[in-house]
Structures are given as C-alpha cells and as structure tokens.
C-alpha cells in the first residue's frame, strides 16, 4: 500500500540521486515479479538493469515510466514523488524495444510529437526536431515514413523522439535486441557517446551481459525480482558477490572447497585463502588460469596437471575444457595452436574469489 504521508530521501548520499526506488514490490495476480527492491540512480549516470527473462527488469522500467503501478513502495525523482503521477506528467521518456513509431506520421512529425502535445513554443519545434535528428544522423529522412526505414534507422528515430523532450531520465527497454550483431555493436558505441554528449541519465535494460559491461557506469543485476548486486562493470566482474553473479557476468569456474586453517581444498587443488573455516564456493575466472610452460609463475602460484578435454579456437583465444583428476575446469589462454594430452596449469590464489552461494 502506498502510504499517504511519506518524506523525500534524507541521507546525503541520496542528494546526488536523481531517482530513488524505495521498497518497490509488484505482483501480477499471484506472481511476485518484484520483491522489496530499492535502488538509487545518480544524475548523469548510465545504469543498466541486467537480468534473465522474468527477473523483473522490464517491469521495474515500466513502473518508472508509469505504465504500471507498484503494488507497494514508492518512487521518487528529484525530491518529489513520481509513482503517483501518470506517465504523461513525468519528466521521463522511453525508447521502446520495438520502437513504437507512429506509422501514420512522418519521421519529423514523430520526433516532434512530444513537443506538440506539451505545447512547446511552435516556432521552436522545427529547429529542435532538426537538431535531434542530426544528433542521431537521421536528418535526411525527416519526411520519410517509419515503414520505409530499417530497424537500426527506426531505432535512431525512436531515440531522437525521446531525447528531443530533454527528459531528466531516459529509459531504454532492450533497444538493441532486435538488431543484428554488427549493427548492435555500432549502436552501442553511438549510444554511449550520445549519453556522454547529452549528459542525460540513462536507465538501460538488457539481458546481454557483454552489452551491459560495455555501456554502463554501473550494473544492477536482478534475479527473480530482487537485486543481486549493484556495482561498476569492473568491480562486479572482479568481485562478484555470489556464484550467480560470477556465472552470469563473464564466465567462471565454481570451485566448491573445504577451508581449514587458511587453506582451501577442492579436489586435488589446494590454495591459501583468508576465508573462514567451512565449506565455501570460490569463483576462478578461466583467463586467470595459464599454462605453466608459458608463464613465469611466482612462488605462491598454485600448480596442477590436467588433461585437455576440449579446445575451441576463438580467433584471439583458445577456450579449453580440462580435466583435473575428475574436476572439469574452463581455461582461457591466448591462441597458440592445438594442444593435446596433459599439461601443467597455474593460477594465483588471489584470483580464487570466495562468493556467496
């Protein structure tokens, strides 16, 4: 239940927060899609909501846009309550997954729609529309109909249509998922530099963790309607808090080991650790494991021998699957030709990161 009396955020850390999601829960019938979720988005940042299908990321986006109402909790923007406003009164704009361009209007009329319905000064509109189209490099298509444009072009128009209104927050609902791989990479770069240029806060939804890492200032990983971890891409990659995070973002080996007096044992592997005694799961990234023959490992390095089970060549790297006395590990090394048989591998104990299960 949304309470009638509530106060704006008080803490000093929230002073720079543009958007604050407080204890949001959303239920559809009996299904709980979002569970007591709280999140802050800083002004000017590029935050990505990352998660599988059904994790609640799109629902959260729609709650912020105003297309759904929260079952409980509040959303605040700039010290004012947001979730009680209808979508047409929020200073928030959305770029839709399937663009949602108005088919009966030209590109220019689409882009100018928001300005016209909010009664922006009529004399300004053509110039602002033109500037927005130039920003996405679509000024040549001003008179065209959306049906004549390719997916990537429609996407740009959708972006211009949203940005021309100078929203305080731009929501992007998996805008690149309908594009092919090359175009996607290109658009990612354009989006990133656009955001830098315009300075508007972006809230981006995707299920593609590579995309999230490439674009974001921070990633908010959602799992079953709750926040798993919120950190910068480098931080979340280097220090995943849970095994789920370690596996979802990038690839990893999850080593289940017994810790006793500062030493972790998993299968035939043993390494020093600062973790407490007991059973613990460790995340060891494939690229942290190297061929002993190719490196000059330090004294502290952990060595082990393993059989090559599978080798996949990926251009610049080899992705190996090795069998270490029954334990299967993934290894990633620079490309160096076909390997067979048994080899010696090394990794640094510090790269085995204890994670929550």
């Amino acid at each position, binding site marked *: 239940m949304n309470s009638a009396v509530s106060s704006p955020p008080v803490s000093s850390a929230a002073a720079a927060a543009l958007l604050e999601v407080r204890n949001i829960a959303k239920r559809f019938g009996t299904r709980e899609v979002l569970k007591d979720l709280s999140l802050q988005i800083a002004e000017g940042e590029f935050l990505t909501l990352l998660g599988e299908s059904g994790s609640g990321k799109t629902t959260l986006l729609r709650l912020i846009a105003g297309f759904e109402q929260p079952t409980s909790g509040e959303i605040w923007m700039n010290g004012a309550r947001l979730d009680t406003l209808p979508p047409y009164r929020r200073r928030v704009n959305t770029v839709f997954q399937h663009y949602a361009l108005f088919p009966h209007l030209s590109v220019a009329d689409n882009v100018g729609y928001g300005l016209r*319905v909010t009664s922006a000064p009529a004399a300004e509109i053509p110039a602002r529309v033109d500037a927005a189209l130039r920003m996405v490099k679509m000024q040549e298509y001003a008179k065209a109909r959306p049906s004549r444009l390719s997916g990537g072009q429609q996407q740009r128009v959708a972006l211009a249509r949203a940005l021309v209104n100078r929203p305080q927050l731009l929501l992007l609902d998996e805008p690149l998922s309908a594009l092919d791989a090359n175009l996607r990479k290109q658009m990612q770069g354009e989006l990133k530099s656009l955001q830098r240029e315009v300075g508007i806060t972006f809230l981006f939804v995707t299920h593609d963790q590579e995309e999230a890492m490439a674009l974001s200032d921070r990633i908010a990983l959602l799992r079953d309607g709750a926040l798993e971890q919120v950190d910068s891409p480098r931080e979340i990659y280097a220090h995943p808090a849970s095994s789920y995070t370690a596996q979802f973002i990038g690839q990893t080996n999850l080593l289940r080991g017994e810790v006793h007096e500062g030493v972790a044992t998993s299968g035939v592997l043993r390494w020093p650790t600062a973790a407490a005694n007991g059973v613990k799961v460790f995340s060891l990234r494939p690229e942290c494991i190297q061929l002993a023959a190719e490196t000059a490992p330090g004294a502290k390095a952990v060595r082990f021998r393993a059989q090559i089970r599978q080798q996949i060549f990926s251009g610049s790297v080899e992705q190996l699957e090795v069998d270490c006395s029954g334990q299967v590990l993934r290894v990633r090394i620079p490309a160096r030709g076909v390997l067979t048989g048994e080899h010696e591998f090394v990794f640094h104990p510090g790269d085995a990161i204890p994670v929550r299960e």
Partner: protein
Amino acid sequence: MYSRAYKTIVSVPPLLWVGLFLLVPYGLMLAHSFWLVRDGVIVHEWNLQNYATLLRNPVYAEVLLRTARIAASVTILSLLLGYPLAYYMSFHATVRKDLLYQLVIVPLWVSYLVRGYAWKTILGSDGVLNGFLQYLHLTKEPVSFFLYSPFAVILTLTHIYTPFVFLPLYASLEHIPRDLIEASHDLGANPRATFFRIILPLSIPGLLAGATFAFVLTLGDFLGPLLVGGPSSIMIANMVQSLFGTAYDWPLGAAIAVCILLFTIALLFATERLEKRWAFR
C-alpha cells in the same frame, strides 16, 4: 503443381455461377432499362425514355434525396453508437470482453423481419413506448409520430446496422499496437490527446468500412420503410419494388436500379481508395 488444364477446368463452375447468377441478371436489368411498357406489355424497343423520366419527374429526385438523408442519418447514428462501444471494448474491457462481444453479435442471428416487427410493437400507438410514457404521465395521448415516420425508419435501421459498423471498427482498433498508446502517453499526451492524434487516425480504415456498410445497405433497404415507415417514408428501393410489382413498369424500375448500382459502385471505389490511403500509412 497443378496442370493448366486442371486449373482451367476447376475455374469453370465458379465462373459459370457468377456469370449465370450475377452477370446475366445485371445484363438483363441493363437491357430492360432501355426498353419500355406500352399497353401493359414490355416492348423491346431501345430508347432513353426511362432515364429522361427520372431526370424530369421531381418525384424520383425527392425520394432519392430522402433515401440518401435517411442513409446518412443511419450511418452517423450507428457510428456514434458503435465507436464508443468498440473503443470501450478494445481499450478498457478486460474480463467481460468476450461476453460483450457476444452480446453485440447475437442480434445479428435474429431475423431482420422479426426485429422490424419488434420495433412496430414498441413504437405503435398501443405500443410499449407510448404505454410507458402515459404511465409516467409524460404524455396524455399516444404520440403518433413514433411509428410510420422517417424517425421510425432511422431508429429501426440504426438498431439493425450498428453491429455492422461495430465489427470492422472493433477489428481496426484491436489492431492498433498497444505500445503506440504507451509511447503517446510517455511523450506527454493525455488519454484525450492520444485518442485524437493516434487512435482515431489509425481507426479510419475500420471506420470507413463500417460506414460504407451502413450507408450502402440502408440505401437499398426496403423492408424498413415497409414495416415501420408508412407512406411518408418511401425509399428508393420501395419504388423499385412497386415498379416491379403492382405498378408494373419493369423498364423504369430497371433504370432506377441501374442508377443506384452505378452510384454504389462509385461510392465503393471512392472509399476503397480512401481506405488505402489511410491504411497504417
């Protein structure tokens, strides 16, 4: 996949059917319009007398105009009733949607004649409506103009043709992607602005289809005036009917029929072109 011989053979029956039951009758009708009646017998002498009569005698223009007026009224009223219903059902009804849809369709299963007679019962001097008004003491005597008037014809035909307007309109509205509505709201348009700028323009093909149905069908209607119209509401189809019946002047009747047919064809062409222009542009 299919041999040419097979394709030719298979298309013969439908072509025969169309030819026999459509083209031949139309051809006969066209031919009759150029003949005349002398001494109670149809004479096959080619002439333009019938068309001249239509142009010169003001009675025919008067009836045609009345028919067009009634058709226009029925169309507009059906749209005024059908559009809000279709809009509500498409955008606001969730659980009861199917039930409401059935309720709109079910009257179409009831024979036109039965519905016409039902209105006769309701609107007559001893009818339900008059009885109700007298019971409430709103009137002292039965109001006679409810029945056997253009009012009754328009009312009855609106009732009958509203489902025809509703169906294509509803289909058109259902086809509007919901994310367009969300996009409109997102960009700052309230529901009213969204309706006039997005929903209405995109519903025009359905609107045109429905309006055309109602107008063309009403134009050629003769049962309505027959049941509830009375002498003051004769429509053009009634004239044609009597000319082929008791008034026995088939050539004149055929001439009128040809005119209506040409007018309807022209109207259908025009609306089809309009519909294409507005189809999801």
